[in-house]
């Protein structure tokens, strides 16, 4: 069964949806923040998200913490983009994250809990202290009764969610799944980032990238062609070059038009991938290091570029997994979104 990406939504420092992703790719400026006096951190910050359309879509929008809002808004946009307005009870959602609800956890931790109860704390804050809160809110708001999962698997979490979604859809457990990643940057995370040698050269980022991955039979029934076909998600241990080349060799198809690597901009591309020339991109240079959300945002960026005619044929979108594992999603662009 072919799996199609029929919708895409995103929240990033460039703004909402694909226009926001395009703005980020075009070099939307990062913020400068201090955690301690005297220091400075560049941050690809979304901040307090106001989205009137999300607020209109769900009356409890005001209760959502920032982490949940990002996931919610990106998911809503993906549903809208897919034109899936009704009969979506079987649809599910699978999101990835690396730090999850840490901000709400920190808020909760700061309450005085020495007395008889947590003084001053609101049950509404406590709701935000579960890592699956975004997926839960989305399911509640849009009445999605399908499989609902949150993966907390580090930087590869979004593509891990996509990899898992393939199996769920191929097993016929849902007609479609919202899939992607969500992350909220906290001060603690900034401190982690500055001490992590593997993260130097990239700007910590927050936001969400979500696609609607749909079985072809479901899309056909709804009369939707989709933006791209997901040929598969390849996971492989070893070097980055081996993983990308292994993925492209595994999924036969048209010429490779785009290879999006999760390398920081200042790190050299492996020589084995040099053959791809200007088809290689390093989206973290402009999107930032969005940790568990990165894979979702990279997918959104690649789909924006497809829509803009920047590539055709196949695309490989890479993210780092745990240890020396890599995830590579391979997409096949559909020439005419509505008639393919």
């Amino acid at each position, binding site marked *: 069964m072919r799996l199609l990406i029929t919708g895409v939504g995103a929240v990033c420092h460039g703004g909402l949806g694909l226009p926001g992703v395009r703005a980020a790719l075009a070099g939307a400026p990062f913020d400068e923040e201090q955690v301690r006096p005297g220091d400075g951190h560049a941050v690809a910050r979304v901040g307090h998200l106001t989205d009137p359309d999300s607020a209109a879509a769900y009356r409890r929008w005001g209760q959502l913490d920032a982490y949940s809002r990002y996931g919610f808004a990106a998911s809503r946009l993906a549903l809208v983009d897919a034109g899936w307005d009704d009969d979506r009870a079987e649809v599910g959602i699978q999101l990835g994250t690396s730090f999850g*609800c840490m901000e709400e956890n920190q808020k909760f931790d700061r309450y005085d809990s020495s007395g008889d109860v947590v003084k001053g704390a609101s*049950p509404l804050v406590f709701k935000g202290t*579960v890592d699956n809160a975004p997926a839960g809110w989305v399911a509640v708001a*849009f009445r999605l*009764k399908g499989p609902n999962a949150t993966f907390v698997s580090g930087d590869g979490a979004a593509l891990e969610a996509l990899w898992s979604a393939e199996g769920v859809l191929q097993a016929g*457990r849902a007609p479609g799944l919202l899939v992607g990643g969500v992350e909220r940057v906290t001060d*603690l995370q900034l401190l982690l980032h500055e001490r992590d040698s593997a993260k130097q050269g990239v700007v910590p980022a927050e936001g969400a990238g979500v696609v609607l991955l749909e079985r072809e039979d479901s899309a056909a029934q709804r009369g939707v062609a989709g933006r791209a076909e997901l040929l598969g998600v390849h996971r492989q241990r070893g070097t980055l070059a081996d993983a990308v080349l292994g993925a492209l060799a595994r999924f036969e198809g048209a010429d490779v038009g785009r290879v999006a690597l999760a390398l920081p901009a200042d790190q050299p591309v492996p020589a084995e991938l040099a053959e791809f020339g200007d088809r290689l991109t390093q989206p973290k240079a402009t999107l930032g290091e969005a940790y568990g959300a990165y894979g979702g945002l990279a997918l959104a960026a690649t789909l924006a570029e497809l829509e803009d005619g920047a590539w055709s044929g196949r695309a490989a979108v890479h993210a780092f997994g745990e240890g020396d594992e890599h995830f590579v999603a391979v997409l096949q662009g559909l020439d005419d979104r509505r008639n393919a």
Partner: protein
Amino acid sequence: MSNRRVVITGMGAIVPHGDDINAVYRRVAAGENICGRITRFDPTGFLCQIGSEVKYAFEAPKTVGPYSIHNEALAFTAGSAQRALAMAGLTPATGDAMDRRAVVLSTGVGPANINFLGPIAQRVHGKGADPYKSDLAAFYAQAPNEPEAAGLDEFHLDTAAPIVAVQAGAAHVYNTASACASGSHAVADAGALIRRGEVDVVVAGGVCTPVTRVLVPGFAMLSALSTRNDDPAHASRPFDAGRDGFVMGEGAACLVLESEEHAKARGAVILGELGGWGYSCDSYRLTDPEPGGIGMKLCMTRALESAGMTAEDVDHVNAHGTSTMYNDRAETLAIKKALGDHAYKIPVSSNKSMFGHLIHAAGALEGCLSVLTIRNGIVPPTINYDTPDPSCDLDYCPNVGREQKTDVILKNSFGFGGMNVSVVYKRYEG
């Protein structure tokens, strides 16, 4: 896509009832309560003062590969995985064989990383430090420059699973975060990986250390916890009319799942079979179950379909059975909707009546106990069942375990966010 049979070859746990899963089962089958007054911190004055704690010394690795096992969550995890792998007779895979193994662990529900705050703060500030009173800004400022040395890396949510991956020699690792459904979610995802041929062996499980000064009052604030503080032994009373919430528990449990052919090829003792699994989402409210049990019913039905079974095949339901007013009522309704009249003919019991709710470890532990129920033929009781609730009218196996040949168990797990998972455990017949 392949459709391989999934079998269970190892189980391990470090939980309040003990660190030998067979002994834990015997105590649970005998209806032995383990809940008591919280000792992890002084709960005086707290709304809820009851917990289910690991109070004994247990053996766990001090280091695993590059990882130091320096807090209880990691010790529970590494210890339970070590026991499960030993029972399965598995040593760590190496080389390409690692690609055929995976770890799916349930972590990250609730403020999981707050669980790590205590040990971290104490390492930074010294043993006497009160992690919940410490000035976080000062804590950050004093942290050494290396994140691992500071323990700051533990704020990543994927800390425990890579440790188990080293123990198992597994290349593929991920964590599920489906709130209280996470443990069964991990088992179900592990089954799916094996069934569709992605890997041959998965260590699946969950870990939770929620008996903290933050989480206990937090859950109490949602009216989720029992406040029967003067009688902790009778606080967890699923399906009883007098229930008033659950008891927070801690620990970890792991199962080793394998493809049937892999287990047989290496001569492993097969303990049971994972027949099928189902997922659903209530899409109702973030912290309340849908009162009609529609989502719960759906995941049970899907699990039976996945197992190729009908309601009449089920011998016993190992219920989620939290002891909250809402869950137990909705779950009862859902079981009746899923199983029809057959629901009245089989025991439905809640292991949580003995040891409380181990949150993300609950599904994995109760999965282990389901396998042992099939093997030992005694259905654990629902203890503290004194007063029937008219809205909970099934046979809850009250207070005394029941000898019964049991071939098929439907295990339910439900969580915040409306996440529902049901797993079918069955007797293995080769």
